[in-house]
């Protein structure tokens, strides 16, 4: 009996404490938990197919290979190598994301064998003509947004936290994003993007999640629909590999020049 009373007291205290959290704190807690659960993957490699479709149904395809290196205490390093369309084959993109300062980016142009340092200010610009902006595909660091918890909602076969997040960077193409995060695994289910005028712009839906190394969840499919233009982009991820032994040497200007 005594034990039950103590337990009840603890639960009461806890729920009072939880209720005391502001929606902003709750939103941040969820984002941090989601980030924590994805920490420690080390490195990964994957093949990406992008299927672009316009309102008329015309399609074009891009093949990209991606390597990612987790950097503790800072944003990830990534290298993207383009295989298709064939005229840009061999073009490679090296990016060092940072939690708070602006990212470092280099582009390798194979025809001239030229490495070009490029400005990372182009956050809201389209990635390869797709409906994904650079800021959508770059490493999602907790510090890049402020948060606000809204409510819980059914999503698929599960329940999701629904949070709003507001980009810290004034160069972002969005005023806000509404994110559905699955309650069991803390993985994103859906993101709705609102443009600079706060009008509905895009919806990103994640599906076919796979678990790797018994811990990390990656969606096989990411479908972005632009409500303003009717264009869509489907990202299909294949051949995810972890523990490749990648080091910072695989993410430098030398490796960028060699990228194939």
């Amino acid at each position: 009996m005594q034990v039950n009373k103590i337990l009840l007291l603890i639960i009461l205290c806890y729920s009072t404490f939880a209720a005391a959290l502001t929606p902003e704190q709750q939103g941040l807690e969820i984002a941090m938990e989601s980030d924590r659960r994805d920490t420690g993957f080390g490195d990964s490699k994957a093949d990406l197919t992008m299927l672009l479709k316009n309102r008329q149904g015309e399609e074009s395809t891009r093949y990209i290979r991606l390597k990612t290196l987790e950097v503790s205490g800072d944003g990830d390093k990534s290298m993207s190598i383009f295989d298709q369309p064939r005229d840009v084959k061999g073009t490679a993109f090296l990016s060092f994301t940072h939690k708070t300062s602006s990212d470092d980016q280099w582009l390798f142009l194979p025809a001239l064998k030229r490495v070009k340092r490029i400005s990372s200010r182009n956050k809201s610009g389209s990635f390869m003509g797709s409906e994904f902006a650079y800021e959508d595909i770059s490493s999602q660091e907790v510090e890049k947004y402020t948060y606000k918890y809204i409510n819980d909602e059914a999503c698929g076969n599960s329940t999701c936290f629904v949070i709003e997040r507001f980009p810290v960077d004034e160069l972002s193409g969005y005023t806000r994003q509404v994110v559905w995060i699955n309650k069991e695994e803390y993985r994103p289910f859906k993101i709705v993007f609102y443009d600079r005028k706060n009008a509905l712009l895009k919806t990103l839906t994640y599906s076919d999640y796979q678990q790797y190394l018994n811990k990390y969840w990656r969606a096989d499919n990411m479908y972005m629909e632009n409500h303003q233009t009717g264009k869509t982009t489907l990202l299909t991820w294949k051949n995810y590999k972890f523990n490749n032994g990648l080091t910072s040497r695989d993410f430098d200007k030398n490796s960028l020049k060699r990228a194939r």
Partner: protein
Amino acid sequence: MLLRPALMFFILVYSMSVHAEKSEWSGYFSGEWRSFLHSPSDDEQHGDSSSLSAQAEYYREWNNGKQSLRFTSFLRIDGRDSSRSHFDVRELNWTTVHDKWELTAGIGKVFWGVTESQHLVDIINQTDLVESIDGEEKLGQLMLKLSLVRDWGNLDLFLLPGFRERTFPSRVGRLRTSAAVAVNQAEYDSSQARDHIDTAIRWSKSVGDWDIGLSHFSGTSREPSFRVSQDKGRTVLIPVYTTIDQTALDLQATKDDWLWKLEIVSRSGQGDRYTAATGGFEYTLYGINESSVDLGLIAEYLYDDRDNLATTAFENDVFLGARLGFNDEASSELLAGVIIDVNDSSRVMSVEASRRLGNNWKVSLEGRFFSNIAELNSLSSFKNDDFVQLELAWYF
């Protein structure tokens, strides 16, 4: 020619790399049509022309990408100018990668520099001038390149045997010097002539927003001087390749929307020691008018302290350019620019536009226009060579 030993070496390494993790071909076929807007300066020079070109690349890697072979060959068949018809091995090399160093042996291509209007610092490869007068097309160069990768930066050490002579249009070709260049009569001031082994070294490092490169080249100048001569009753220019030492700096500061760029070279051996520089900025307006179109504005100053004795046309010139990137499915792009001589107001305008058609085709439009060219400007031989070029390429 040193192509044979390079090829033998390539075949040897290839035969040892039985467990390739990757082995692939890629490249393109292209048709090009050039229309010249004026009659040529010299009656012997041709009018409109068409040509075909193809590039094939082979890449093979093994040992987790730590070793690789590359082969890139290029062929052009020109309908008018036999000197533009040529075959070149752009790359034929083996690379081995280690934690602290990398080594490349064979024929390769290396680019140094940051500016857009001209490439002063870029010196490893010879210019394939018949391909384009912009100097961006290069011939393959035999090299042994050792890269040291350390905390204090990258150090690249080069041994460059097998000098390549610059390509020039023939007597009937357009975009040539006032007298044709007698490429088969090239002269060297080194007794070793084209057998001289050139050396080069480059240190580079990225420090925050700054990308810095310091280099030194010692060997045969890629850029010849000319001696006027007579050949079978005609005036010809004989290319003279001298031995030079060139120290260079290339620098870029990436400050938000601004890219600040500087290239400086100091060269001795070709007349008196001289200094040349290119410097300026590229400022980009992203997503103009809430569209996906980016507009880049480029301004550079081109300087050479030899003034009118400069072997290049750009001794006191200003380059102004605009780059439009449409960020669409077809990767549509437009680059337009003009180089204006501050002294005599001679102008060279260029326009380059391209877009993809479907997944494998690309159409490119290029135009170069020479206006107000002063008689003494070294571009004066091009003054009637304004042209528009259409190119259609199929990539595989």
